[in-house]
């Protein structure tokens, strides 16, 4: 039950949403004990709230009367949100159950007459239609999607990559987690995929030009027709003439014979829009229908009731240029049917098919026929002035006025370092330093850069070796330090293959070779990484859900993460043995070489890459992520334990007092 302080008729009181039994909204004044207002949820026809920007937070409930409540607590806006959200859910639930039985109440939700307060704005129309749209939305509801096993299976089947991940994670899951829990966790992080898959599946194929699809085939000298029931229905729907011919002939002719005769008749050629030639079969029964119009009287009205002038070819008759002595125009004339029958047939087919499809470019509930919008569409807009800008203007406030933008000298991160000098000392240091170069410049006519940068390549090495307090700028040691730092950075980038193009070109084998690992090991490391990231996802989503019922799951996920660490360790171990095998092999080769030639090659085992070190370096961030998850878990567990302990001790005190 929700209970918030709210004013009604300028009186203070409590607004309550009663969930028990018949749901209702009540308001009780502070002074009274029994509720003055009591509205049952199904009676509510409209719910409005003041917009978030209004000064007062209030809602208006319309049932038999209008009730306006103004929230009076310090947290008025939050209260308003809470009440409207709850009410909205209840009302929709009530509507849904109601519309199943009786027809929905006529739309009584339109805001008539503006109401008494201008600030009142429509919160949400709760029309009868809302119930149906709601149920449609519900198929995409998270909880429903998570329960739909069929859907999940179908998504897995359609995406091999996802299937692989699912199977891998399923294999690695700890036994303590049930398959149902696992599935919830797995799909919990992928609801969006389920939703889009559900939407994708919900789309069906539209109608098609069925006569062009059905083709009789010659099998063993006889004609075979493969037609489904749906196709026959579609033929009847698309070609009322065929339905008529069928009705008038079929008891006399056998069904199968009718269709095979039909598919070789002149009639079908006409319906398909092909030219009829003299060599075509004659069929006295069917040919008599040749002159009938396919779209008989009961055909739906497909053409536009009024053709806009601008695209009306027949309208050209009005401006009869021939009357002024010009030659008849031969381009824009309405054509006779026989000239290009195929075009007409196709156009007619398209019209028929499109008639069943809800238009995507128009509002679904707009009035039929040409409306204002269509009229505007057809206007030559580029000859008109551009429309007014109807974008919503964002008012960006100046941030620096809100908070002090500047930082003081003492709050800075370098405060300690800078505090050594007063501003005056800073200035004199800098000026003294710059003075040197400036005076040198004015004397010599320009700076002698060669001496200033301090690079003296002939400076002897013993000069460098002398212990100095200050390393000279540009000294050889500093330059080689810089070089090695840059070379290291370049190598690092080369290793990581930051270039995307190169990354795609290189397979995982090449990647593995760079780290000195076998491809097999590299792949299994990648797999372990994937599943561990997966479990980290589960951990955080369960951990942050705040649901006490899932508390047990969190603990089990921590165990899983521990196991992930074990798996990483196992890979590191096998990488290490792989590396020592490699070293052994190289040693043996060296021995053999030494025996053969009598010369010994220098061999440094530390130069052999790979091993546990390479693995651990790669999974460093992953390990850190696991560690931080565990740390946080342990910390909060500790706190929770302490809290429960405190709570139980307090309860026992209370008990003992009684």
């Amino acid at each position, binding site marked *: *039950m*929700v209970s918030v302080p709210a004013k009604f008729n300028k009186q203070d009181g409590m607004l309550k949403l009663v969930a028990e039994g018949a749901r209702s909204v009540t308001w009780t004044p502070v002074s009274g004990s029994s509720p003055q207002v009591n509205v049952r949820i199904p009676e509510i026809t409209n719910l409005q709230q003041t917009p978030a920007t209004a000064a007062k937070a209030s809602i208006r409930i319309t049932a038999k009367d209008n009730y306006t409540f103004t929230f009076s607590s310090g947290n008025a*806006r939050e209260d308003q*949100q*809470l009440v409207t*959200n*709850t009410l909205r859910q209840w009302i929709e639930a009530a509507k849904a159950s109601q519309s199943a039985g009786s027809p929905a109440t006529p739309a009584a939700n339109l805001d008539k007459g503006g109401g008494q307060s201008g600030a009142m704005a429509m919160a949400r129309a709760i029309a009868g239609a809302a119930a149906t749209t709601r149920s449609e939305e519900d198929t995409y509801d*998270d909880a429903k999607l998570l329960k739909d096993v069929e859907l999940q299976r179908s998504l897995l089947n359609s995406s091999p990559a996802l299937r692989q991940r699912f199977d891998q994670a399923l294999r690695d899951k700890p036994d303590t987690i049930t398959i149902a829990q696992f599935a919830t966790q797995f799909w919990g992080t992928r609801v969006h995929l389920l939703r889009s898959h559900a939407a994708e599946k919900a789309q069906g194929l539209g109608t098609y030009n069925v006569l062009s699809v059905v083709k009789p085939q010659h099998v063993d000298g006889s004609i075979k027709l493969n037609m489904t029931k749906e196709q026959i229905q579609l033929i009847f729907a698309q070609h009322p003439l065929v339905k008529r011919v069928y009705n008038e002939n079929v008891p006399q002719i056998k069904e199968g014979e009718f269709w095979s005769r039909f598919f070789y008749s002149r009639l079908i050629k006409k319906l398909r829009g092909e030219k009829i030639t003299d060599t075509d079969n004659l069929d006295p029964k069917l040919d008599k229908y040749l002159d009938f119009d396919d779209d008989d009287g009961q055909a739906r009205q497909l053409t536009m009731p009024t053709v806009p002038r601008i695209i009306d070819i027949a309208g050209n008759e009005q401006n009869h240029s021939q009357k002024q002595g010009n030659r008849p125009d031969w381009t824009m004339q309405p054509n006779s049917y026989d000239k290009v029958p195929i075009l007409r047939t196709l156009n007619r087919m398209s019209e028929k098919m499109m008639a069943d499809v809800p238009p995507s470019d128009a509002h679904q509930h707009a009035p039929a026929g040409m409306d204002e919008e269509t009229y505007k569409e057809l206007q030559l807009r580029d000859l008109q002035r551009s429309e007014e800008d109807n974008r919503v203007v*964002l*008012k960006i*406030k100046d941030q620096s006025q*809100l908070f002090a*933008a500047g930082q003081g*000298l003492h709050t*800075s*991160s*370098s*405060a300690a370092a*800078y505090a050594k*000098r007063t501003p005056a*000392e*800073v*200035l004199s240091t*800098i*000026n003294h*330093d710059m003075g040197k*170069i*400036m005076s040198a*410049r*004015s004397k*010599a006519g*320009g700076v002698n850069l060669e001496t200033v*940068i301090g690079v003296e390549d002939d400076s002897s090495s013993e000069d460098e070796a002398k212990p100095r307090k*200050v390393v000279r700028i*540009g000294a050889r040691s*500093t330059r*080689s*330090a*810089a*070089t090695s*730092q840059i070379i290291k*950075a*370049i190598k690092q*980038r080369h290793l*990581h293959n930051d270039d995307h193009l190169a990354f795609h070109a290189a397979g995982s084998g090449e990647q593995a070779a760079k780290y000195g690992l076998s491809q097999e090991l590299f792949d299994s490391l990648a797999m372990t990484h994937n599943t561990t990231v997966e479990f980290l*996802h589960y951990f955080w989503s369960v951990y*942050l859900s*705040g649901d*006490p*019922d*899932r508390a*047990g799951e*969190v*603990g089990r996920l921590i165990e899983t993460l521990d196991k992930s660490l074990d798996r990483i360790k196992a890979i590191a171990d096998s990488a290490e043995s792989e590396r020592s095998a490699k070293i052994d092999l190289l040693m043996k080769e060296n021995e053999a070489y030494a025996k053969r030639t009598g010369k010994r090659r220098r061999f440094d085992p530390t130069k052999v890459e790979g091993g546990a070190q390479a693995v651990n370096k790669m999974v460093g961030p992953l390990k850190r*992520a696991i560690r*931080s998850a565990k740390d946080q*878990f342990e910390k*909060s*567990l500790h706190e*929770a334990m302490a809290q429960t302990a405190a709570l139980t001790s307090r309860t026992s005190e209370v008990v003992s007092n009684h």
Partner: protein
Amino acid sequence: MNAIDGTVRQVKTDDTPPPSLLAIVLDTNPHAWAHLSSTLPLSSAIANLLVFINAHLASGNANEVAVIASHSRRAQWLYPTPKGPISHHPSSNGDANGDIEMNGVSHPNGSTTTTTPAKENANKYRPFSTVENAILSNLSNLLSSTTESDLASTPTTLIGGALSLALTHIAKSTLLHSPVDPLASDNPLSALADSESVARTQRIPLTSRILIISVSGDLANQYIPVMNSIFAAQRKRIPIDILKLAGDTVLLQQASDATGGVYMKPERPEGLLQYLMMAFLPDAVARRSLVMPSAGGVDFRAACFCHRKVVDIGYVCSVCLSIFCEPNLPGNLCLTCGSYLSLRAAQTATPALVARKKKKRKRVAGTDSATPSGTPAATTPMHP
């Protein structure tokens, strides 16, 4: 076709690398340079920088350079010297520097210092000495006009302003270089369209880059202007290179990462010249064939708009994308755009780790169902 109207039209394509503009933002924060004075004094850094600039100018005939000082209270041109609002005295010392006016910079406090112009050194390539003279005299003017109160008021530098100056200069230079749309120059026919019998050289767009030599930390309070500049540079494909001699790294590392620039934090600042020459000299064209040094882990964290703190988990306005460090905004209104913003739903629930005891407690209906879509985002810990 040529035979018909008797004109000869041809498009010359230039094989030489396109001219390159290097805009250097030099952080001249006196606090930081004074702090660095024992390891790398400003004067040495300037000298090293001059050598680097000369190397850049020498590596292409048409190469250009621009240097901007990002000072504690303002951003100031070092090269080229702006001619506009700066009043200059008629002086007798001749126009030694071509068309660059640099004599006498009036100061806010009214006094005027005239720097003694350097004698032209006959042994120095003239473009080099022009740049050198301009940079040195502008810098010394800037430093001598810095007051103690300027320094006392801020520990950091106006990197945002300097970055904007660099970007506007690049935009202007790019236009000056190819007044026609740079895209159109890819198509030789478009050049033909407006030419009459003149053999014209295909215009080659200027390739530009920005190098920030930074010594200050505490840049997070300029998060918004710097981020805007980064996005502008990203759009214009201008890499921002960073040479971070001192200070914390949060913001500038993102700048180089987002724009594909080079980030370097020298372990030995004394080897400055080597860093400059080796990591920052190649221009955008040359970089296509090189492996450039990598920064490794980048700190991608953002600073909140309310306190300019760098945050791990922030709350973002769905309308204007402002970032806030806490969900409790005054009046639930976005501080930047004033949109109503209920961040309560985005708050993560406190983890419940102890299973609830079976109690006869009714759940309060719909207390937290305002928006069920607010899934808490799990974050992976940052690189230290």
